[in-house]
């Protein structure tokens, strides 16, 4: 039997198991059915809910404009799946080709898709983390609990960490009229994702909206009262703040522990897979029956020196899931690479922030349109003489253009005239990332085509 016949049999009567019933898992399942997969489909999820949308949980849901229970993801089509919800996967047996669940059940597969995503990094001290008033924000339940707390008569909130989630929580608190202190270990909010120059804008924005922002400090201890309720927080600069709520926003951890011992290349940085979403084993050999997509997947991207990138982005989850689903039921030559350009957005303090590309690779930036002072601009990041990323504050409509610039390896700094380019911004400045982490060499590569299905890689000989 040829490999192609196998694919036909698989499409008709194979067993596909998806571990992780969130955005990526759902979109993969829908794509499988759309592409004619008629075999059995099992969706395994550790939460009790069918797939729901997370971006509103730190924004509209915290403002009471959307109820967390109303964020269920719309269905593109019926997926005719067997749902195993509220039960996590415990381990993976690659020899027997089955997933074992925490309740002892085993689920056999012909093809496995791993979309287990991430969870919120908990507060490092378990007893303090258990205090009433200490929150993380990742799930629908987290959001509902935090909303009830914020609207239940508290006065001061401490947000630990000024990344995107932390900043959005702080913004929501201010809209509720609550006093909010933000403690950030770095020199400015958003500095890890966008660098110090844009971080300074975020810094100003927060202070302008009445946030008590404290940078360059960390929270050393959370202290509870007699009834196990949070009362105050101790900071590394020796200061003490009385707070009733602390929201721990220290980033995410990838849900890969259940794969320990399975022999797949999974660890704290994600599950390594090739550009076609096929998972590597620990020897760097690609598996042909295990795929990964979404926040938990780490795959090489040609525009970024083939670095293995794990992207915690909504759009990435969707596109990677679609590519993974396509490749799972395709013969080799029909498989497609996942070459999505990283893109994410945030909404805080009345400003829409959007980013495309990988800003943290960009050692320099120019403000291509608008000005930092007006908090309305597009900043373009450069890497080895080409455009590598762009970030907009209230200018998202332009980012499609810069996406094209990144994909086509356009030169940096951009020298053309454009609308709203102010003279003060013509010189590139250091983007001021705390740890630039610049790789040393790499070809210039462009992506071609209008849609992911057409996207291919073209090497451009370097003339520089």
């Amino acid at each position: 039997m040829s490999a192609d016949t196998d694919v036909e049999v698989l499409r008709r009567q194979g067993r596909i198991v998806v571990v992780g019933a969130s955005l990526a898992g759902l979109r993969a399942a829908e794509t499988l059915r759309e592409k004619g997969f008629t075999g059995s489909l099992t969706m395994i999820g550790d939460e009790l809910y069918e797939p729901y949308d997370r971006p509103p949980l730190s924004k509209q849901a915290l403002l009471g404009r959307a109820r967390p229970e109303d964020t269920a993801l719309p269905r593109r089509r019926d997926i005719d799946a067997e749902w195993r919800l509220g039960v996590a996967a415990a381990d993976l047996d690659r020899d027997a080709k089955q997933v074992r669940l925490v309740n002892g059940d085993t689920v056999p597969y012909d093809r496995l898709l791993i979309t287990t995503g991430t969870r919120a990094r908990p507060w490092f001290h378990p007893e303090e983390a258990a205090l009433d008033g200490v929150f993380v924000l990742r799930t629908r339940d987290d959001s509902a609990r935090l909303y009830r707390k914020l609207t239940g008569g508290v006065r001061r909130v401490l947000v630990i960490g000024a990344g995107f989630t932390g900043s959005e929580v702080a913004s929501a608190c201010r809209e509720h009229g609550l006093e909010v202190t933000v403690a950030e270990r770095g020199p400015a909010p958003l500095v890890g994702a966008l660098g110090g120059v844009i971080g300074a804008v975020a810094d100003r924005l927060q202070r302008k909206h009445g946030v008590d922002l404290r940078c360059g400090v960390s929270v050393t201890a959370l202290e509870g009262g007699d009834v196990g309720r949070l009362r105050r927080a101790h900071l590394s600069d020796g200061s003490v703040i009385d707070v009733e709520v602390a929201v721990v926003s220290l980033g995410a951890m990838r849900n890969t522990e259940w794969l320990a011992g399975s022999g797949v290349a999974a660890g704290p940085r994600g599950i390594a897979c090739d550009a076609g979403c096929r998972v590597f084993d620990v020897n760097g050999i690609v598996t042909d029956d295990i795929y990964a997509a979404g926040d938990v997947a780490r795959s090489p991207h040609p525009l970024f020196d083939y670095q293995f990138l794990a992207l915690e982005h909504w759009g990435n989850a969707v596109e990677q899931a679609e590519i993974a689903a396509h490749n799972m039921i395709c013969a080799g030559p029909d498989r497609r690479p996942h070459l999505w350009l990283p893109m994410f957005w945030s909404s805080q303090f009345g400003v829409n922030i959007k980013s495309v590309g990988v800003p943290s690779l960009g050692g320099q930036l120019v403000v291509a349109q608008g000005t930092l002072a007006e908090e309305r601009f597009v900043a373009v990041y450069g890497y080895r003489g080409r455009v590598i990323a762009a970030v907009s504050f209230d200018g998202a409509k332009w980012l499609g253009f810069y996406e094209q610039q990144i994909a086509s390896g356009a030169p940096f700094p951009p020298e053309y005239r454009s609308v709203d380019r102010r003279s003060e911004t013509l010189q590139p400045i250091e983007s001021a990332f705390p740890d630039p982490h610049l790789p040393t060499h790499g070809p210039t590569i462009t992506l071609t085509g209008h849609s992911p299905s057409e996207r291919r890689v073209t090497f451009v000989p370097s003339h520089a």
Partner: protein
Amino acid sequence: MTSGTISAQITDYAHRADPYPLYAELRKQPVRREDDGTYLVSTYYEVRSLANDPRLSNDTSNRPPGYARPGQPAEETGLPPSFIFTDPPVHDRLRGTINRPFGPPHSPRFLDGLRGELAKVVTELLDAFEGKDQVDVVEDFAYPLPVTAICRVLGVPREDEPRFHVWADVLASSLDPRSGDDDGPEKAQRARQELGAYLSDLIETKRRHPGPGMLSALAPDMTPADLEATAVLLLVAGHETTVNAITNTTLTLLRHPDVLERFQKDPDLAVPIIEEVLRYEPPVQFVPWTTALADIDVAGTTIPKGSPVWLMLAAANRDPRRFEDPDRFDPDRKDNEHLGFYTGIHYCFGAPLARIELHLAVPELFRRVKFSRLIEDPPPYRANAVLRGPRQLPVAIEGLTA
């Protein structure tokens, strides 16, 4: 056909009823240079990418001397350019201010609140069909509704319509890049001045006695000149565009009886039908007033800095590389991301209002009126090549239901 003649043919009235073969010809070369240095861009992805390109300017003062022709008459009216002819940051400031009383997040219910009154207008207009065996869809239906709507939106007295109708018509014609009327620019300038003066008085009154509508809401936030220019733009844009959209939808449905029959059984089809008409017969056919601020490479051609650029929306909407079987009117079309309202930062400001009007007007028209036939097909078209639509749409009708 030589390369220099195609824009002249597009503007030539002889092609008004069916410009689509010309657009197909145009798409053979996605970016086409005319003899006078104007560039015509006609394919979907190229139009979309240029419309979102910060190197393309809507401010016609960026054109080299001698190119001022389309878009806007020379400014001696004492008015600043309206925001459609400005770039950021001026554009963003004006549009942002104007959006506050118009839509979300500050005024989420403003447009929705107009529905009741506009539905009443639709009913009254259709009631007047009673006893007739022939109507002109333009004069008797498609025109009065948008005019009432824009009057309500701005807070302009509806009974002044006969006065500003004439000015609005002249200004709409001035968008036409080659109208063939030598006095055109002068007339347009005069019309803008007169309409401006009319609105300026009105705005002054609103400042003293605020009432409902955007003019009153904006009066405290804008300079008199900016508000006047904005009011002129919105009043004109509220005139010809939605009229054409309603008329084009009616005409298209009458030409596709199979779709019409389905629609009469299933009113929910209104949404895809209206979107498909916006693709298939867009009321704004092309945008001839943009200018390249730098050399721009598009589809293998370099548009040199300073060149006037026409973005051919109607041609892009029928690009076979983007839409399957694009010359077919197909309300079942999936993925209908048309350019009927343009795209990018100059995306039609009035689109939400236009959709409300279309969704009130079209289903009710076909629910109540029993049409027998088009009396003239094609109907007589307006002279305008940019804001293309029938001047009249006479149809025979057989009756009216309540």
